[in-house]
């Protein structure tokens, strides 16, 4: 069954990238096309979201080649949710970038590269095949490399080296894992892998090596998601990239790693069992998830701790936000760890992960854009130079306030339900350790945001802040995204329904 609506978001993003590439000499046309592409992307995603909502799982076979040999695109509730997240963050970031990225930067390559990044993100969310996941990762990463070193200065190239080489090594490992999977399972189609792993005797699959290969893949996905111990590239890359790009990197690109973990480990490798137990010290049970649960748990707790503690002491707002996002990804993965270990709360845990991902995407997007607007208006985002922004620009201060409170988890903002679901899932599973880690993380979140708030936004306006002239377009983007954060919290019911659909349709 071929459904064009499945490929629509990808085609729109690809079309926007090519159109902006062709019109690169004509500034107005290019910006117009780019914005039109961004809007069309939102429309295409909305259409796909509605279609998936009524029809369930949609598939598209590229060029009519049948599965498992052809390239399959699959849109289910999980993909649709992640695509909606990408659309919600990418359009405001794009509008913001038109006013933020310098004219020369826009002339050179910003718009095509931005849209190519969205092509990669969309492809990664839609693909039904592990090798194509690799290809879309590369499309996305290649564009993000360019955007991280966009300004090309000293710190940017330095952050770029770290980001590029870590990810190139990650890609090599991903290829190794994929090759191994093909050799042991005999297919790369995700649904096919799940089928064969579910009945290893009939298909002659030896599950033990698959577990090892899945573990290699997990390292690669953790690198993309910026989980400890693979977080080294995060602060440099987010500081180096232009603010709207940081918003998309933290909001969307990171979530691709999270998505891959949910998709592969809970719907594909989750069915696998090692007969006779895992045979690893301290791990009971025979399911693959009995292995990945504790591993994810350690990564999540370490991320929450490391990110939170370091963020408390940062003076650079972007750096603070980067460490904060390491910590927040820990919160996103923590319910997954609990859900992997305790099957009873698995559905709730996946819903919690998705809701928290959405919350982090919009809130962190808002914060990075606010930080960009502050930088443009004030000329610095170092807390030592800031102060009293509340007096000079209540809107900017409001953007930071709403984003910060959303990450802290204050009702009625989006973060309240995210945090509540995370706590709910861990408490129901009886995972006291996870609950404790989440509590410590929540306290750290309050600590670093209130410190930034006190130093940067309250008090007497500093010299730099007093002369601030924020741009109107940037302010309206900040306001819009702030309203989205509030709207998700107030009208939470449909969001929760959309987030629980993936786990309901898993059965």
């Amino acid at each position, binding site marked *: 069954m071929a459904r064009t609506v499945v490929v629509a978001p990808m085609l729109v993003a690809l079309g926007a990238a090519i159109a902006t590439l062709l019109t690169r000499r004509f500034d107005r046309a290019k910006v117009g096309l780019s914005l039109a592409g961004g809007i069309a992307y939102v429309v295409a995603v909305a259409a796909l979201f509605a279609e998936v909502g009524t029809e369930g799982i949609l598939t598209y076979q590229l060029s009519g080649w049948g599965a498992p040999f052809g390239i399959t695109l699959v849109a289910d509730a999980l993909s649709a949710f992640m695509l909606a997240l990408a659309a919600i963050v990418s359009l405001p970031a794009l509008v913001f970038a038109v006013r933020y990225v310098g004219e020369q930067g826009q002339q050179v390559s910003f718009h095509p590269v931005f849209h190519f990044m969205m092509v990669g993100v969309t492809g990664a969310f839609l693909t039904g095949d592990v090798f194509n996941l690799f290809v879309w990762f590369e499309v996305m990463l290649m564009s993000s490399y360019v955007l991280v070193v966009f300004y090309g200065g000293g710190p940017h190239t330095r952050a770029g080296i770290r980001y590029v080489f870590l990810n190139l090594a990650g890609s090599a490992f991903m290829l190794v894992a994929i*090759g*191994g999977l*093909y050799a042991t399972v005999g297919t790369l189609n995700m649904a096919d892998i799940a089928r064969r792993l579910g009945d290893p005797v009939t298909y002659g699959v030896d599950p033990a090596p698959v577990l090892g290969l899945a573990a290699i893949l997990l390292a690669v996905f953790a690198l993309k998601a910026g989980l400890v111990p693979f977080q080294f590239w995060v602060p440099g890359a987010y500081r180096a990239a232009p603010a709207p790009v940081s918003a998309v990197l933290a909001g969307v690109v990171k979530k691709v790693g999270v998505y891959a973990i949910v998709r592969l480990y809970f719907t594909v490798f989750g069915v696998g069992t090692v007969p006779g137990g895992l045979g690893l010290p301290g791990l009971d049970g025979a399911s693959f998830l009995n292995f990945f649960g504790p591993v994810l748990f350690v990564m999540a707790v370490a991320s929450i701790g490391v990110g939170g503690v370091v963020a408390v002491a940062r003076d650079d707002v972007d750096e603070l936000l980067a460490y904060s996002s390491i910590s927040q990804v820990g919160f996103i993965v923590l319910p997954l760890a609990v859900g992997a270990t305790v099957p009873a709360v698995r559905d709730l845990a996946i819903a919690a992960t998705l809701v928290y991902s959405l919350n982090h995407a919009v809130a962190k997007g808002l914060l990075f854009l606010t930080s960009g607007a502050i930088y443009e208006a004030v000329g610095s985002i170092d807390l030592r130079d800031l102060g009293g922004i509340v007096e000079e620009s209540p809107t900017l201060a409001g953007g930071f306030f709403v984003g910060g409170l959303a990450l802290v988890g204050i009702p009625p903002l989006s973060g309240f339900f995210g945090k509540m679901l995370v706590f709910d899932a861990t408490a129901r599973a009886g995972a006291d350790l996870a609950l404790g880690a989440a509590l410590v993380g929540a306290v750290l979140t309050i600590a670093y945001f209130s410190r930034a708030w006190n130093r940067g936004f309250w008090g007497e306006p500093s010299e730099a802040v007093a002369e601030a002239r924020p741009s109107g377009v940037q302010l309206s983007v900040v306001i819009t995204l702030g309203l989205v954060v509030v709207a998700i919290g107030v009208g939470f019911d449909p969001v929760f329904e959309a987030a629980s659909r993936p786990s309901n349709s898993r059965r």
Partner: protein
Amino acid sequence: MTQYVLAVVLGLLFAFGTFLVLRRDVVRVVWGVIIMGQAANVYLVTMGGISPEAVAPIVHGSGEATTDPLVQALVLTAIVIGFGTTAFALVLTYRVYEEHGTLDLDDVSTSELRGSLVADGGTAARGRDGATDEALDESGPDGSTDGGVTDG
């Protein structure tokens, strides 16, 4: 026999690639990443299974048994991607040399430390601030276009 030779070669390639990645010279790191990527490609081809009778699926209709064509198709894709990323990594290396005047990774990281100290003293080094200023300047009247981004 072929399997053992390939296994040993792959092991050596990965070991050599890892060794180079851990060097301080950026160019060696690039080489290391390239070698690791190529080793992964060779590994991917071998995962299709090797048998002495089967040939690579290149000549159409030769009537001979062929090896698994899927991995060959995958490797073609991976090679193209590897080519692109290698080109980018080399350009980035050149840019690093332009910006920092060195290709030693230790010096690159300390040069930023020194830069930030100098920036505190008042003479702005090209930090994040400096470079974003440049982005701001581009829209300004003096339009400094000292090539923050390579044209292409």
